[in-house]
Structures are given as C-alpha cells and as structure tokens.
C-alpha cells in the first residue's frame, strides 16, 4: 500500500510533539538506509533553506501621520531614497537603492537592517502641499517601533537553480556573482544545492501561494510567484530544471526579523544587494515527495555561463553538478578551475536547523498552498521598438 499523509495529519503530529522532522541533507542518508517507502512512512517534514544575495528585496513602511500632516512625495531614509508614489505616508525601500551621500557603501539593504536592529533612522520628506495635507517638509527620526506597519516584501527570492559564473576575458569582472578573475580564474556559484527549497519540490506540489515559510528569523509567507518565474524550462528525469527557473515572492513582518538571518551585501563596482535567509518546510505527503527531497548535489546540474559577454544570452561553457562545484575545483577543457560559493551553506544549514527546532517544538505549522504555481510559465524579453511597431 502506498503512503499518504495529509497536512492535517502532519500538523496533528506537530501538535502532539511526535512529528519526525529532518533537514534536506539529513534525509539523504535516511532514504539510503530505509528506502523511499519506509523513509516516507517515517519522516513527516523535511526542512530546506538558503542564504544568498537576493537583489529583489525591499520593505513597505507606513510612517504614521505628523501634525499638520504631509503627503510625502520624495522620501529619504538615512539619505537613501524610498519610493513614495503611494498614499500619503506609505513608502517602499528597495535593498539596492544607494545612499545619496555615501554611494554604494550604504543603501536600502542597510536601512532595512538598521530598522530591524532597532536603530534610529533619519526620515526626510518633501511635498507640494495640498488642502488636506498642508505640510511641505519633514525632518525627523523613526524606529521600527515608532512607525506602523513594516514588512519585507520581496518580489523575487530563492531561485530554483542558478547558473555558475566564469570570465573568459583578460580583465577581472565585478559582478553580482562576486569577482570573476580573468582567463577563467574562478567559477562562482550561488545556490545551497541539495538544501535549496525549490530543488526539493521541483514541481511545486507543496510550495505555492500561501505556503508558510521561515523568513529572515520569523514566520513569513509566499505571496505570489516570484518575478521572472520561468517554470517551463528544460528538466531532467527527476523534474529538476537545468537552468534558473521558478522564483518566489515572499512577505514577512520586518519588526520580528533578526539580522542574524538577513544582511546587507556590497558587491565591489556593482552595487548593493542583500543576503536573505529563507527556510521552507516540505511535508512528506507520499512517496513521490520523499523521492523529490532525497535529491543530492551530484544529481543537481547547472550551466557555467561566461559573464564576459555583455549580452542577454551569454554563452555556456559546460554543464556541472553541485557536487563538482562543492569540491573546490572543476576540470574544464583540461584546466583545473577553482570554484567558490556565494550562498552561505553554513547559514543555510543553520536556518534548516532553526526551522526544524520550531516545528519540533510545536511553534511552526505547515500551511497548504492556496493555489499552485503554473508549470508552463515562460519569460518575455524587452525589445526596443518605436511607437508604430506592434
């Protein structure tokens, strides 16, 4: 008889403190030892995690009203511009926005972390003034406790697979994938591999809209498919996409986050990004889910892409698996090339452990997705056309 478990059954076990929860790394040996069927019977939840730079990160803030009130049109937080083309005192601070005075040394990501840390942030805003909002400017300080809502809303996080980067030119390249040394000096890669959320649920059976997740130290939710969601990618026999595919839009309460699990990143000569910690629990509903989560680095493939070609479609130099990338060097056309991660496996593991603990202690329950992601999504490109063209 095949194994079937429901969300309700698993949550009941969590409530009774008897759910078996293991990380996506630990589960590999369990499956080897017990086989898929017995492992599916035994394990209830598998925790996955990632901690890598995710540029598409930002936070919505509501500052509260001053007296007399102001309809803010231009807002800066510690000298970093926040988008305020919204209602009077709402703004969105994007992680990659840079300081007007300090450049890429300080930016939106830093403002977000300073807010989380409870620091005072200087808020400056101007307005043309209206009958209902007569104030023309404001210069004050806020903290996360002095304002109303503050929630992280990230349009694109947790990429399902990502290409590794190399540089065949004779000049060093400074990229969001780190420094790429000339003449194929190194290969940088950027997923947590066998621990990565979407590698463990490749067909989005349990990760969808409404899934409850661990986000930067607190509970968060998947709110939508992430931007550039490209699920209609070529896949291997395990359903794993061979190139960057699905992404997640996530939301969570910034006030409850911890800078242990979210950090500003400054990439030399590129700009600001943000390391975001995401953990996703995967319920073992049946043997198929068990098979998905038992995937190993050696079965996960990605392409090596040449970043020295400054066009949309960069040439691919070969295909590698994550076990090869993790080994520290790769042989490419007879040359041994050093590999380096950009995603912290150490932190990813810490998140998977933290989430495990939360579930085992009955402080985190699984939420079934309200709606599943499409499997046939493709990407459009941006073409340069003039007004008459279709």
């Amino acid at each position, binding site marked *: 008889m095949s194994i079937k478990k429901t969300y309700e059954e698993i949550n009941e076990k969590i409530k009774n403190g008897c759910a078996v929860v293991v990380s996506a790394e630990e589960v590999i040996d369990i499956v080897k030892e017990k086989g898929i069927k017995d492992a599916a019977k035994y394990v209830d939840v598998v925790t996955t995690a990632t*901690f*890598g*730079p995710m540029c598409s990160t930002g936070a919505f803030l509501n500052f509260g009203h001053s007296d007399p009130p102001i309809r803010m049109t231009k807002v800066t937080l510690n000298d970093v511009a926040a988008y305020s083309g919204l209602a009077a005192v709402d703004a969105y601070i994007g992680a990659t926005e840079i300081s007007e005075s300090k450049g890429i040394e300080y930016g939106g990501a830093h403002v977000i972390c300073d807010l989380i840390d409870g620091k005072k942030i200087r808020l400056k805003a101007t307005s043309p003034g209206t009958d209902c909002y007569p104030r023309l400017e404001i210069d004050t300080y806020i903290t996360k406790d002095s304002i109303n809502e503050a929630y992280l809303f990230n349009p694109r996080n947790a990429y399902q697979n990502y290409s590794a980067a190399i540089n065949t030119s004779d000049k060093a390249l*400074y990229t969001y994938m*780190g*420094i*790429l*040394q000339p003449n194929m000096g*190194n290969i*940088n890669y950027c997923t947590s591999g066998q621990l990565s959320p979407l590698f463990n649920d490749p067909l989005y059976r349990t990760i969808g809209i409404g899934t409850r997740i661990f986000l930067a130290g607190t509970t968060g939710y998947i709110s939508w498919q992430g931007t550039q969601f490209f699920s209609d990618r070529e896949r291997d026999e395990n359903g794993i996409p061979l190139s960057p595919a699905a992404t997640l839009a996530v939301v969570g309460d910034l006030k409850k986050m911890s800078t242990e699990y979210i*950090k*500003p*990143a*400054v*990439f*030399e000569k590129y700009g600001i*990004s943000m*390391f975001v910690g995401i953990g996703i629990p995967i319920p073992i509903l049946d043997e198929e889910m068990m098979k998905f989560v038992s995937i190993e680095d050696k079965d996960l493939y990605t392409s090596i892409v040449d970043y020295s070609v400054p066009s949309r479609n960069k040439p691919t130099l070969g295909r590698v698996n994550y076990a090869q990338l*993790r*080994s*520290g060097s790769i042989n490419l056309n007879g040359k041994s090339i*050093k590999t*380096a*991660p*950009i*995603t*912290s*496996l*150490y*932190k990813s*593991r810490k998140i998977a452990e933290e989430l495990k603990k939360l579930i085992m202690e009955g402080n985190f329950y699984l939420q079934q997705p309200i709606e599943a992601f499409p499997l046939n999504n493709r990407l459009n490109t941006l073409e340069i056309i003039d007004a008459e063209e279709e």
Partner: protein
Amino acid sequence: MKKKIFLIFPPHLTDQPITYTLIKKYDLKTNILRASINYNTQGNLLLELEGTKENISSGIRYLENIGVKVDFIHTEIKWDEKACIHCGACTAVCPSDALKLDSNSWLLSFNAEECLGCKLCIKACPLKIITNGL
C-alpha cells in the same frame, strides 16, 4: 624549505642591499611579494625565502643583527570572524588558499601564514569585514 617574512626597516637601513646579501651570502632564493620602500623613510617588505633551514635561520639572524624588524606571521589584512557569514565569496580570489572554506562545516578559516598580502579579498567580501591590517 620556504618561509614568508615581513620586514620593517628603520629609515637608516632603507639603502642597504639586503636581498642581495641574502642571495649571495646565505644562498637564499628571495621572492618579493610586496614592497614599500622609500629612501630615508621607514619601509616594509613582504618576502618569501627559499633555501635550507640553516641558511634561512642565518639569513634572518643577519637581518635582525643589522636592525631590521622581522615578523613571521604578519598579515596585511584583518578578518572580522564574528561578523563573517561564511559565504565564501572571498575564497574565489584568494591566490594562496589562506582564506578557505572547510568542506565539512563550511566555515571560513584564515591562515595568516599563507597570506600573500595581495588584498584582493578586501574587495571581494560583500560584507566588507576584511580590512586593511596595516
């Protein structure tokens, strides 16, 4: 054997042909990894010595005798271990594996003796926690 040493010269020694002496008199291969020496001001030199153990010891004794300060594990970078997230971005550029990720724990370690002082890691660290140690 090889040994890496960091030399600090007082101003009156900056005109001494010390590498020449090390080569000629002590039969050492010298490899200058980094130098900042200006005539009549304090200078420093990051040097790799190659030769027999005895010759290296004698060479170092000679340097100390003439008044050069010799530092064995000097490094020009400072790594703020507490603030490190162990991402590994710095390891991509480190030419000597002085910065290395452990393949079990995936924690970064820094081995000052292997550091060549190239400072590429300062630029590569997205958290900006590797700084100039001088």
